């Protein structure tokens, strides 16, 4: 494994399939991304999309949960969580924004394609989408802050759903204006939209790209995440059948989020490792104080490097441990339990925080090379910051954790 030796992980948990995944994705990163990554921020069509296509379709990340006979990877159980984690670590190293697309895609798929929730009907129905030769990104539509745009008064841990739902036969009609998906509002193949199902609690329904009465607005300009062509959605009573409602209930909703947070943590971990390489290179080659000192031999810079290394080492252990916990519900209980969900939240917040701190420090050390596009570092910094805020607003994260660990009732 690429960084295995220098930053130890609980390697006893990593299986052969994971190791070969790492190898494949690392090679993809070298060949498809790193070689031309400077340009990627600018040209989605010419540069990013081909790399995504290679990863999602040719290597097959988007179809790994489908049966081999449909052209998928044949992974069915929660053990896939570890495979996803190690893959995303590599993807995130190459291009964090592509990692974020796959984190979303996996979280969407986890609701119907991972045991014990495998839904053969849906798998068959969506096989043409995810096992085909077109990139198929899944994108979550989660509760967010309320305000003039909020469609519903119901909340998930204080955050209103962006979409309101009315019963429509066996299914629902979904409505919402200026609904912001996590990614790829312009071009996701499937949106997994959270809404309130009344007594059933939170629910998630899958909407396809071409769903009637679903439209997307202008592309959003944002700090980072070049691979995500995001845009707000308008849902004007979009009808969705009961079979497309992939989950209901808090436990199932938390389970989806646990997988999502883990995937995002792994993506960010990859970013951190990329930043490590950039900083290491800088530290080895830069000379300061006249010609007196190789950068890394300066005690102040080295101390910051030491701290960064420490955060990487611990972030890595945490991410792998979370992946393990999610991959073995037989040992650790369901991914949607309060405990697992909160561990996932804590891990995501910890890893994202550690990454931002380390990247900020790295930029401070590299000074103008830190913010010049040419050295690549600033791109990871923008991407991680965007993920950190987009996945969950800070306030909601801590309130959730307090609720669980301190028994708060009104938060």
């Amino acid at each position, binding site marked *: 494994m690429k960084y295995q030796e220098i930053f130890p992980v609980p390697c006893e948990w990593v299986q052969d399939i994971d190791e070969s995944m790492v190898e494949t994705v690392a090679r993809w990163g070298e060949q498809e991304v790193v070689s031309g990554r400077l340009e990627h921020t600018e040209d989605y069509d010419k540069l990013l999309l081909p790399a995504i296509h290679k990863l999602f379709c040719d290597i097959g990340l988007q179809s790994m949960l489908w049966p081999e006979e449909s052209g998928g990877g044949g992974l069915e159980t929660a053990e896939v969580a570890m495979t996803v984690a190690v893959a995303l670590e590599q993807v995130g190293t190459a291009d964090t924004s592509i990692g974020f697309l796959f984190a979303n895609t996996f979280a969407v798929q986890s609701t119907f394609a991972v045991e014990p929730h495998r839904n053969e009907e849906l798998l068959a129905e969506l096989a043409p989408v995810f096992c085909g030769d077109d990139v198929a990104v899944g994108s979550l539509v989660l509760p*967010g*802050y*309320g*305000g*003039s745009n*909020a469609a519903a*008064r119901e*909340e998930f841990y*204080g*955050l*209103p759903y962006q979409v309101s739902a009315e019963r429509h036969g066996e299914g629902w009609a979904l409505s919402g204006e200026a609904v*912001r998906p*996590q990614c790829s509002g312009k071009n996701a193949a499937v949106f997994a939209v959270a809404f309130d199902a009344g007594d059933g609690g939170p629910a998630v329904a899958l909407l396809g790209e071409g769903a009637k009465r679903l439209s997307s607005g202008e592309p*959003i*300009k*944002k*700090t*980072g*995440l070049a691979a995500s062509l995001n845009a707000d959605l308008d849902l004007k009573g979009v009808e969705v059948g009961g079979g497309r409602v992939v989950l209901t209930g808090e436990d199932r909703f938390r389970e989806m989020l646990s997988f999502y947070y883990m995937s995002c943590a792994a993506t960010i971990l990859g970013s951190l490792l990329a930043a490590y390489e950039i900083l290491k290179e800088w530290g080895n080659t*830069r*000379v*300061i*104080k*006249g*010609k007196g000192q190789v950068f890394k031999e*300066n005690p*102040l*810079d080295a101390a910051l490097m030491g701290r960064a290394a420490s955060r990487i080492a611990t972030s890595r252990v945490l991410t792998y441990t979370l992946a393990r916990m999610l991959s073995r519900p037989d040992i650790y209980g369901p991914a949607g339990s309060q405990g697992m969900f909160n561990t996932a939240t804590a891990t995501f917040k910890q890893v994202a925080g550690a990454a*931002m701190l380390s990247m*900020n420090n790295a*930029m*401070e*050390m590299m*000074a*103008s090379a*830190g*913010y*010049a*596009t*040419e050295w690549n570092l*600033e791109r990871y*910094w*923008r991407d991680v*910051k*965007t993920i*950190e*805020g*987009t996945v*969950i*607003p*800070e*306030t*909601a994260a*801590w*309130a959730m954790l307090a609720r669980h660990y301190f028994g708060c009732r009104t*938060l």
Partner: protein
Amino acid sequence: MPGIDDFTRPVEYLSPLDRSLGEIVRSWAEKEVLPYRREYDEDWEEHRLIEPAFDRLMGELGLQRVLFPEEVGGWGLGHSDYLGTGSYRMFEEIARADSAMAVAFGVVFWPLIMICNEPHVNMRLCEEFAPMFIETNKAVFTANAMTEPQGGADIENMDLLGGSTIETCAILEGDEWVINGHKLWPTNSAGVADLFGVVCTTSPGSTDPEEFAFIFVPADTEGVTQGKPYQKAGMAADKNSDIWFENVRVPSWYRACGPGDDFKYFKEIISLGSMGTIAFVSGAMMNIYEILREFCEEKTFRGRPLKENDDVAGVLADFVRDLEVIRVIGYQAARMMDRPDLYGDRWSEEMVAKTRAFKYFAADKAVENVGLVMNLMGAHGSDRVRDVEKHWRDLKIVQLWMGGKQLCQMEVARWFFDCETL
């Protein structure tokens, strides 16, 4: 209801011009910058949107003249008691709209400090250069060509290295300096500036302060070549590039203050640059305060406006607290620049250390706070329509220039703890 004008300033320190400077710049910013700044990121190479705004502020409103002595048509700020506080107010108001514009504007004065400020006014050069700024209604820029490829902040690390790492060389041939060298990163390079202040050595490798030379070079002098602008995380209005000087010839009197004094007064560039940086920081933070007020009233959590959530309020409180603090120390730094009779020479090691301390404090706190504000805003934090993400990117750059954080730390420790080898 409190607004940006209710943050504390030491009122005793304010310049008589404070109010009018503030009003001129604020109304310019509201009209010429705020409506367009969201498009600036795409304008980083061409400055199609950015240039006209500069023309209005600097040429038409005339703010590019303020430093020059009255005798040559300037406003005399350079020899007033309000050099610091007057500049602070302008910089802050510009930075509220766009901190890259603030730095591009501020840097106009940076090399001119060497010839416009008491006690080292160089009237011959003032007379020579003032017309290009005064007899025009277009923006005219200068740039300070300091940094070189080999050493980053080494040039600014004057107390340790004494200029010994400067490779840009100036040789006196008759009545002319012949300059050869390669500089990186100056604000207002990539073709923007009409006049450079170039940090040279008259004897490569020497640590003798007498060999340190600060020489003016008009940008159109033969042998001056500028590269294309670098692409950066932000700060589109601030263009930076490589500059090559190849057998560039300028008159011998283009050296700012002469042997010894160039070295000595160059430190004023550091202290004043640090002071200005604090103004960029507080200006940007004032704008973020305005945005936050609106955002936290509009958005809700648990059905109530964000600002009524105690946890959110904690982040808001820390933000305005730090802005209060930054502004107070910013004005203190400005006052120290205004009144060397009370606080010591602007070029003294003490003033360099203290303004460096205030500068890196302000920048660190801003970066930290704006990061937290973005997290608070959730998905809206990274959305360009809120402008916070722009300030976040810009402020990171503000934190890193002039040698970045570590050099500030070393200079501060060196003075307060009498260190010798940092």
